[in-house]
């Protein structure tokens, strides 16, 4: 008799925490919004540090939940090539937005903790971005319904494991075993998405800075906001390039007999990369008209990033999970 009772209890515990999570996230939405309208370095630093600690605490709870799954979901059977064990990644389903927020906070840590003069110009627009991000995470939180698709799979697995050696049950377990091996535990799964989320983390902080530059029509050579925006995009671009490239051999392996190269999600990902590349090239002539175009490109590239993120759910094709 296989029982995942500990897993179910852990999941229910997370669900019980959902209202507190939502309340705290909405609180940070308000606090960061207030920080945007009446900014002071000290206030923003305080809000940032507390929000980071809160987010880290909830991330710790997710880690505990994943460890629980690792300890509980264990199947060993003669028809399996090896024992089945699962440690889910943090960048799937309902957890990916929260993971993105966590990385964004880590990425902006040097900005908020720096005591350099004039950085309030940078942290103020970033606090607006965080305010919106906290609102989004309040709506799409990872606690109300933790990892719904995986939960469905685990419930089916539990049923199959208790159904004796029927062909359907064995078939399901074997299928799940290979899904764990080639999807959840694939080496690429642990490199490709986290690298992309790391790049998104830098881009999400750079976006409000570009927006501010456009609104203020400031395209100066030695501008704090412009320099920080560029530095963030350059860092994000590094992760984006590596992340996208690592996806290539994975695609070759996973979609061996499928035409994936021009499929919609791949298209929009390459498009986003091309626009960030265009931004970085345009920015070579800082202080010129080209730099102002490049700022527009910075904003446009982020719009395409959001589109690329949503494409997984909205567009058809091999990379679609909608």
């Amino acid at each position, binding site marked *: 008799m296989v029982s995942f009772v500990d897993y179910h209890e852990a999941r229910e515990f997370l669900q019980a925490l959902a209202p507190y999570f939502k309340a705290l996230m909405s609180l940070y939405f308000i606090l960061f919004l207030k920080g945007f309208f009446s900014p002071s370095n000290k206030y923003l630093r305080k809000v940032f540090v507390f929000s980071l600690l809160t987010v880290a605490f909830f991330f710790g709870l997710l880690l505990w939940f994943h460890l629980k799954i690792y300890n509980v979901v264990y199947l060993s059977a003669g028809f399996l090539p090896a024992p089945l064990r699962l440690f889910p990644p943090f960048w799937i389903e309902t957890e990916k937005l929260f993971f993105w927020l966590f990385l964004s906070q880590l990425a902006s840590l040097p900005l908020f903790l720096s005591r350099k003069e004039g950085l309030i110009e940078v942290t103020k627009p970033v606090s607006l971005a965080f305010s919106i991000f906290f609102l989004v995470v309040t709506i799409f939180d990872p606690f109300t319904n933790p990892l719904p698709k995986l939960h469905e799979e685990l419930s089916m697995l539990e049923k199959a494991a208790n159904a004796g050696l029927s062909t359907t049950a064995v078939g399901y377990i074997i299928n799940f075993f290979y899904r764990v091996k080639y999807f959840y535990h694939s080496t690429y799964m642990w490199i490709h998405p986290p690298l992309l989320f790391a790049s998104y983390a830098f881009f999400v902080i750079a976006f409000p800075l570009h927006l501010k530059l456009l609104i203020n029509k400031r395209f100066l050579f030695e501008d704090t906001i412009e320099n920080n925006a560029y530095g963030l995009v350059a860092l994000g671009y590094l992760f984006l390039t590596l992340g996208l490239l690592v996806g290539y051999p994975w695609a070759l392996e996973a979609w061996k007999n499928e035409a994936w190269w*021009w499929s919609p999600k791949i298209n929009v990902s390459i498009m986003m990369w091309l626009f960030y590349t265009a931004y970085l090239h345009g920015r070579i002539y800082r202080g010129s008209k080209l730099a102002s175009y490049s700022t527009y490109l910075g904003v446009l590239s982020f719009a*395409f990033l959001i589109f690329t993120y949503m494409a997984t759910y909205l567009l058809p094709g091999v990379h679609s999970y909608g």
Partner: protein
Amino acid sequence: MGRLRYWLILATTITFSLFGFLFLLATAYEWYFARSNPDYFQSFDYLAFTNFMNRLAIVPSLLLIILLILCLEIRSADLKRSILFSSFTIVVSLVLFYFFGGKTAVGSVVALVSGYQLYLFVKLILSRSIEAGQKLPKAGSLILHTGFSLLILSWVSLNEHPYQLPVFWLATFLSVAGSIFSFFGSWIVKKLKA
């Protein structure tokens, strides 16, 4: 010369953006047809479309390679030599394109460019007139662009070839290492000196 550099970068920026829009158009086209045909991605129409797009993408790819050669002047070669080399490359690519098709043309041009960049890289490293603070970003830029050239080579010309993945990983390494030195080279040198 400063004006020319400006126009070259502007042309590069515009080409990248237009190339990006090409991918957006492709996505819109596929989305439109997939709406009325759920099996569109398994159909011959889709296969024909991908073949068409592969051919179409060669144009901006070649344009970017030519711009890359012209922009080499910004990094280390002199302008006259860059114009000469790019004119030579344009002629070679057109001849190869006409006789052997886009795949061979792109492959040969990319191999030529990579070789030329390697030569410039060695020249830059051996040069004593450029200070370290400038040398590292310039070297990084050369490495990065060599990496991207090799990526195009591995995708376009080495597709399904046994060397495709080794070339791809080498190109990935060069692209990332080059990006680090190109974007943060001056900062790294400053920190090392401090």
